[in-house]
């Protein structure tokens, strides 16, 4: 049996390795799912925010967390005029349309906002819409009327006049149990009736009422109504590929340079050593901050800089120490004696010898680069367009998420980061025990 297959077999005897591999498999599955379900372009588009998210509440927590703690926070309710029983009445030169937007409200918690989106089609004259709110107890509240443009939005929650009139912000006042000082919402059948007057024969009108809930989806939403799921999903392939590429890039180049230094010795080695020493005292993070601030925060540029600075890293010293005794190894002398050239000796005889020791280091190196990327994003140096875990954390921090009690916003990406770190670390430590027999107990 080849030594590699033998080691693979040993790996199956470490429960931690199996668990680690399982965790990595989960991450890879998530990454693949993310890339397939939300193509790259679409992900960027979504992450830019705005229109796609208009039906989402702001800063809503995950549904399952609320349910887990026994809460019954309202979910978002969308009532479309297409599904309403619209009444029409023609008059000369136009129509009167009554759109009853009715819905069942089941929660005793208040929603987080109410918006009405109106789309209308007309030649010149804007339709005029009068809005009436129906509460379960039969009371009607006039919400005023206004002319609507082709794409219009009525934000009741931001209507200060309305707020002053009702005594509380609209989405509270309109749902509150009467005479209870706005303490809880009253479940029941609500309705918003739109009485629209269309001043043209061919004019059309449609409306959507959105009663924003306080919980949304598996991951919740952020301050821009974006579903955090997008970032959490897409953060996985970004984190994994950044970590893997950075680890591969630095390890391979460092290894080859270290081997070349050891093999050629003399001034080559001296130059590499001095470069490494200089590089070791260069602080990585401030340099990355400088690059990010002065040039670009593209993740690929950051990756390049990380690899470039990682080449002459402390790893060179470690590999050098491992390779140095090998320079005198009899089998390398034998290879020279049958005429093998320098490149062949470095790549075929020196490096394969330390690969076994390297693999565990390599595996445990991946999460450190994942963390580095997250730290950069947290410092505001994340890629401007890519949804990543670090970006989520950065937003959360900028919006004082913890101060406002939006724990989900911080915990979800943090858990994913830790999950990544743990998965690779467990596999790495098990590999270390297999490949470095010195660590193994008898």
């Amino acid at each position, binding site marked *: 049996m080849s030594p590699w297959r033998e080691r693979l077999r040993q790996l199956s005897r470490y429960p931690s390795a199996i668990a680690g591999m399982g965790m990595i498999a989960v991450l890879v599955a998530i990454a693949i799912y993310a890339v397939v379900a939300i193509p790259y372009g679409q992900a960027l588009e979504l992450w830019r925010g705005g229109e796609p998210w208009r039906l989402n509440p702001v800063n809503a927590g995950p549904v399952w967390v609320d349910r887990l703690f026994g809460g019954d926070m309202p979910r978002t309710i969308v009532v479309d005029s297409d599904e309403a029983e619209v009444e029409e009445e023609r008059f000369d030169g136009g129509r009167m349309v009554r759109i009853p937007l009715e819905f069942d409200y089941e929660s005793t918690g208040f929603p987080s906002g109410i918006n009405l989106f109106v789309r209308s089609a007309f030649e010149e004259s804007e339709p005029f819409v009068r809005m009436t709110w129906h509460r379960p107890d039969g009371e009607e509240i006039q919400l005023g009327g206004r002319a609507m443009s082709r794409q219009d939005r009525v934000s009741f929650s931001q209507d200060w006049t309305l707020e002053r009139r009702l005594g509380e912000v609209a989405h509270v006042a309109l749902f509150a149990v009467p005479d209870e000082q706005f303490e809880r919402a009253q479940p029941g059948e609500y309705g918003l009736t739109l009485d629209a007057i269309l001043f043209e024969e061919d004019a059309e009108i449609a409306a959507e009422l959105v009663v924003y809930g306080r919980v949304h989806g598996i991951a919740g939403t952020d301050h821009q109504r974006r579903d955090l799921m997008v970032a959490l999903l897409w953060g996985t392939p970004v984190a994994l590929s950044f970590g893997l590429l950075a680890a591969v890039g630095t390890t391979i180049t460092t290894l080859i340079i270290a081997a070349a230094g050891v093999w050629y010795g003399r001034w080559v080695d001296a130059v590499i050593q001095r470069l490494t020493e200089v590089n070791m005292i260069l602080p990585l993070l401030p340099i990355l901050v400088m690059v990010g601030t002065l040039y670009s925060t593209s993740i690929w540029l950051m990756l390049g800089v990380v690899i470039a600075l990682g080449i002459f890293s402390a790893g060179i010293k470690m590999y050098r120490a491992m390779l140095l005794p090998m320079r005198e190894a009899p*089998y390398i002398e*034998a290879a020279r004696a*049958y005429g093998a050239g320098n490149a*062949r000796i470095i790549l*075929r005889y020196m490096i*394969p010898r330390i690969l076994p020791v390297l693999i565990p280091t390599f595996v445990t190196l991946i999460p450190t680069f994942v963390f580095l990327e997250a730290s950069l994003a947290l410092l505001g140096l994340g890629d401007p367009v890519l949804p990543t875990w670090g970006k989520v954390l950065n937003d959360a921090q900028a919006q004082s998420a913890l101060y406002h009690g939006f724990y989900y916003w911080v915990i979800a990406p943090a858990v994913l980061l830790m999950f990544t770190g743990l998965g690779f670390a467990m596999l790495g430590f098990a590999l270390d025990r297999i490949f470095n027999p010195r660590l193994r107990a008898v």
Partner: protein
Amino acid sequence: MSESAFRPASAGTSGPLLSVRDLHTWFELRQWGFLRLGHVRAVDGVTFDLKRGESVAFVGESGCGKSSLARTLLGLHRPTSGEVVSEGRSLGTLSGSELKAYRAGVGYVQQDPYGALPPFMNVRRILAEPMIVHGIRSREEREARARQVLEEVRLSPADEILPKFPHMLSGGQQQRVVIARALLLEPSLLIADEPVSMLDASVRVEILNLLHSIQAKRNLTLAFITHDLSTVRHYANRIFVMYAGRIIEQAEVNDLLEHPQHPYTQALLAAIADPDADNAKHQRDVPAGEPPSLLNPPPACRFHPRCPHFMAGLCDEEDPPDFEPRRRHWSACWLHR
């Protein structure tokens, strides 16, 4: 093979296979990469010829420079001065590709068979490597030649040996693979550096016999390096005894073993115990002290501080020339003056 131009002379040409003239291989000893502390005089003025098809032994203690001499002959160390001449060309004047071709003509068998085989390659790969290096592209040809040398070193069945990794082989089998590798490029000179000292007693004879029969069958020149005089009698025609970087005595094997001339050789022979219960009854004569440092060897005769026949004013002042006290038996000692 295409690149036979500067290999050690192939059989049929007249003259010695390899001529070594006043060879010095020194290593610069530096501190912190630049402070020169001096030179380690590993090989310090050695002259001899290797004839075609003969078997010679270089005998000496560790640190006498015998391994450095072997590496110089292999082209692994550059001579500091003096010449190694093969086919009328000096080793120092060969270009890179000529040196590679020369190396193909010299096989190398090392002391530690396990260390001499890359542990991460299987036998098939190990044997393929030299052929790949020397441009044998055809996989079939490589496989055929690998099987042929395995048969020559009596490792069979090849199908079982080829996929194995070194750690799955016994010490003797490992050393056979090393020998097979050395034979792959059809060398005219085989250098074996302590080929059996790390092996078990019962395997030693086997490996020595194998080397001997290969040497005879291929009409190779075999230079074998050892610290153990008791093994040389049946496996070498000539012996060179080395001490502190120099050859101090050379002769035909039986003549040297029966009539050692140099005091050092005499001491060496006296220290060897053939199995005999009487050995335990008396102390052996061992010259006091230890071999000198090659960094600061004693002046003139290198052995004089330990020599029982030391003559003040002569041995420590003038280098002894090679005397010929017996026919074709040279010894560098003032006693023969």
